[in-house]
């Protein structure tokens, strides 16, 4: 074939296919929990991020590693929102859905926009699978998918054909179907394959046949989109105009780990991380375990309690110390957290919240540990509490938590959640030189040393074992003011309780004033904390754009709260607290500020949709 002819054919093929530019798109890869959907989603995310889009992701998977195949409970999904503009959420409604089996279709179809792209693996729509997904009739034939742009692709068959030359047995060969689906979606959204091909090479370097098979499947999926007559429209989402800099894609748990490493480095200290595996916090443990070149001392403890106690010991001995866990783990740690409060030892407790109570919904998100964080211990036991608002923000929040812990000699609780812990977004790499050092001073002078003599912030000295002449005893029994000796004196207990409380109140001097986005006064203030930031901010943007007198107060600091909160609350007619619980921040605000608030509560193991916030706001605003 001559070059001219080849080119001619290509042009014809391209001409056949229309291309449409989009500001943003939300897509979902959904399949059985063993179908490799998380991997496909992660690869699509990375390719889009490197391409220059703003991205926001939401991996959603069952608690079972391999739930019964083909069942509704076993569906695993990875949602990606990628955009030509700044975005805050993984998207409400889907522009495209890839359903690898009937169950994945059943679970996710309701989120697909009318007219949205629906790619199904038609091979899997067998009688047995349809029954497992509780379909009475085959939806591919019943006409119920009429409202969507349905593409029935025999993904399994195509994959097997594509990888035939590698000689892999059929079972193994069919595992490459996630890459086939990924290739097809890459074509659909005009993404380059190079990134993923490189990743395949590295990941499967030790099993070349698998590497080749995955690469073949990926290319086959892409080429099918390119050549098959049925695909006549593809989409372009151009790079976003983000703040200049170097970026990388990061999950919240990765960001937390990097933040802790960075904080320790800024403090000139080794990092001690004591933790017990728990979903969805284990990725922090994994990330830190792999970073030993930063002198990270990772201790995988025998249980949650030991993890907490070990960080108290390590902090007492002079390390920057942290633990990571989720709700049930925090419940187990609370007695030991109280020990850190009364011994005034600096440490950080990261709580990647999940659905509760008890074991609850291990892999699903919720924000129902605010009470547990602020008031969930025996005795009068205050500690600073802050919450990260997005995956990338976990980095800054972790550093802030360490900074406050060592300055005020206190445990600090950092709240994140499964949604931002597992979700990802682009992270602008900070300039290392611009990061503020964390100043730590240890007591060394035996002449002036008193274990519970407080500085101007209310903090006691950090005297570490090994320092000559400063031998002293601390513990869980009440301390005498200044000397730190055991003391049961009634007035002393009152005084010490007040001193501990005041110390935590003093943290207010180290936290920025509360800001309000949108209108600074008006009809409605939307209030949020933690991972709900994105949905509430997006809803506010839309409402403000529509001329509504609406503001958004997103609270990073939950204990203490910034000094100007009381004033902000007075400036709006209505206060709507949006949280993934039954009204915990609402309760705290009402108690603290004596204000009437409204609540938007969701406990479905899922993040807020933007439209849920907007609809509630419109309901309150009425015709205003």
């Amino acid at each position, binding site marked *: 074939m001559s070059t001219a002819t080849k080119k001619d054919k290509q042009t014809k093929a391209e001409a056949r296919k229309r291309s449409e530019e989009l500001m943003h798109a939300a897509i979902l890869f959904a399949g059985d929990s063993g179908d490799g959907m998380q991997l496909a989603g992660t690869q699509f995310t990375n390719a889009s991020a490197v391409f220059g889009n703003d991205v926001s992701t939401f991996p959603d998977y069952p608690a079972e590693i391999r739930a019964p195949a083909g069942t509704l409970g076993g569906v695993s999904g990875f949602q990606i929102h990628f955009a030509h503009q700044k975005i805050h959420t993984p998207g409400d409604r889907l522009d495209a859905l890839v359903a690898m089996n009937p169950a994945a279709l059943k679970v996710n179809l309701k989120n697909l926009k009318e007219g949205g792209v629906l790619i199904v693996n038609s091979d899997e729509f067998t009688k047995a699978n349809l029954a497992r997904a509780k379909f009475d009739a085959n939806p591919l034939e019943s006409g119920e998918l009429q409202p969507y742009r349905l593409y029935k692709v025999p993904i399994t068959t195509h994959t097997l054909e594509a990888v035939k030359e590698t000689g892999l047995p059929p079972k193994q060969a069919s595992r490459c179907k996630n890459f086939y689906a990924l290739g097809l979606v890459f074509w659909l959204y005009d993404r380059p394959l190079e990134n993923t091909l490189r990743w395949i090479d590295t990941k499967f370097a030790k099993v070349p046949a698998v590497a080749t098979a995955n690469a073949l499947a990926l290319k086959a999926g892409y080429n099918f989109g390119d050549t098959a007559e049925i695909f006549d429209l593809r989409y372009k989402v151009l790079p976003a105009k983000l703040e200049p800099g170097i970026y990388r894609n990061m999950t919240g748990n990765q960001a937390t780990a990097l933040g802790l490493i960075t904080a320790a480095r800024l403090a000139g200290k080794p990092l001690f991380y004591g933790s017990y595996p728990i979903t969805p916090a284990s990725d922090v443990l994994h990330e830190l375990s792999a970073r030993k070149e*930063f002198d990270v001392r990772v201790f995988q403890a025998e249980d949650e309690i030991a993890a907490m106690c070990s960080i108290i010991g*390590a902090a007492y001995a002079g390390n920057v110390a942290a633990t990571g866990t989720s709700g049930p783990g925090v419940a187990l740690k609370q007695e030991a957290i109280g020990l850190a409060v009364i011994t005034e030892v600096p440490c950080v407790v990261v709580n990647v919240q999940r659905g509760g109570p008890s074991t609850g919904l291990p892999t699903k998100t919720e924000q129902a540990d605010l009470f547990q964080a602020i008031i969930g211990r025996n005795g009068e036991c205050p500690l600073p509490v802050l919450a990260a608002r997005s995956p990338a923000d976990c980095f800054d929040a972790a550093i802030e938590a360490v900074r406050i812990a060592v300055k005020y000699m206190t445990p600090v609780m950092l709240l994140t959640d499964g949604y931002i812990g597992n979700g990802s977004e682009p992270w602008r790499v900070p300039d290392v030189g611009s990061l503020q050092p964390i100043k730590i001073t240890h007591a060394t002078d035996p002449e002036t040393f008193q274990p519970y003599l407080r500085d101007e912030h209310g903090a006691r000295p950090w005297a570490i074992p090994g320092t000559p002449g400063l031998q002293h005893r601390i513990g869980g029994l009440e301390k005498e003011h200044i000397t730190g000796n055991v003391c049961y004196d009634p007035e002393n207990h009152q005084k010490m309780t007040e001193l501990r409380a005041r110390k935590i109140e003093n943290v207010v001097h180290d936290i920025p004033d509360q800001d309000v986005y949108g209108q600074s006064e008006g009809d409605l203030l939307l209030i949020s904390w933690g991972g709900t930031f994105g949905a509430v901010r997006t809803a506010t943007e839309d409402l403000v754009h529509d001329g509504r007198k609406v503001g958004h107060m997103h609270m990073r600091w939950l204990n203490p709260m910034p000094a100007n909160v009381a004033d902000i609350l007075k400036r709006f007619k209505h206060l709507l607290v949006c949280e993934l619980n039954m009204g915990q921040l609402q309760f705290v605000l009402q108690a603290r500020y004596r204000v009437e608030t409204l609540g938007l509560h969701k406990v479905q193991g899922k993040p807020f949709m933007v439209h849920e916030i907007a609809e509630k706001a419109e309901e309150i605003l009425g015709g205003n």
Partner: protein
Amino acid sequence: MSATATKPNPKQYKSSQEVRWCPGCGDYSILTQLLKTFADLGVKKENTVIVSGIGCSSRFPYYVDCYGFHSIHGRAPAVATGVKVANPDLDVWVITGDGDGLSIGGNHLIHTIRRNVGLKIILFNNKIYGLTKGQYSPTSEFGKKTKSSPFGAIDHPIHPISIAIGAEVTFVARCVDVDGKLMQQVFRRAAEHKGTAFIEVYQDCNVYNHGSFAYASDRKVRDDHLVYLEHGKPMIFGKEKNKGIRLNGTEPEIVELGKGITPDDLLIHDERAPSPTHAYLLSRMHYPEMPEPVGIFRDIELPTYEQLLHSQIHDVIEQRGKGELEKLFTSGDTWKVD
């Protein structure tokens, strides 16, 4: 040691705090012997940390002039692990009791021992809950009548040394609170041991469980009820040194020396046996059927947890170079926005 003149006085290791155990409590003697050991070894106060849990014994740190941490019930080994990993140069002692260490804190004790963290753990066993005023403990005898078991305990007791051996302990010993000499020897050897050293001390609670170890502490009878373990020596015991322990199949039995039985027929104590079988067998010898061994059951050398942890860090740094934040931040796929 020859330089007795420069050797510190045990009193120098006492803190200013008034000791508040009940008069006549066995804890006093343990405190005295540990202070003597510290003085004898000339340990640096500032490099010594004593961590305890909750219970009578756990008040111990307040009475010693070194760094002390009176933690929460059962958790001392976990706090101490954090201390030791953070700074392996510190000498870290853990003081616990039968309730603290074997009931609420049983999990931590087992896992600390199996990791071989370089901690010296002294478990004061008085077979009773003293601080809560007299309930049966995990080491109380079956049928023991206490406030919480007025008709007799229906729990079977746990045997601390068997537990420690089951958890692969590298140093384990037993002492009786009235035997200061042996305690000092054992504490000293524990101090020199690199991994976890676990010491059970039979301690009399003279208020709630007085005399529960009389068979092992009463001068008149104790020699007939205890075997003093000596490495490489046949296991002979009795006031007259006329009895010994012989192995009959896999079970130990008491034999009388003479009448054709010589020390050569007896079980030879081997504290360095690589297999824990011998030590375990000794740990199963209980009064009144058998004399109970005291002294060092087992003392073997294995890498400690903190050594392994730090050498892993060291190796990774060798391999990858010391971590740099710039490199860390830009690891993985990055892109530039102009």
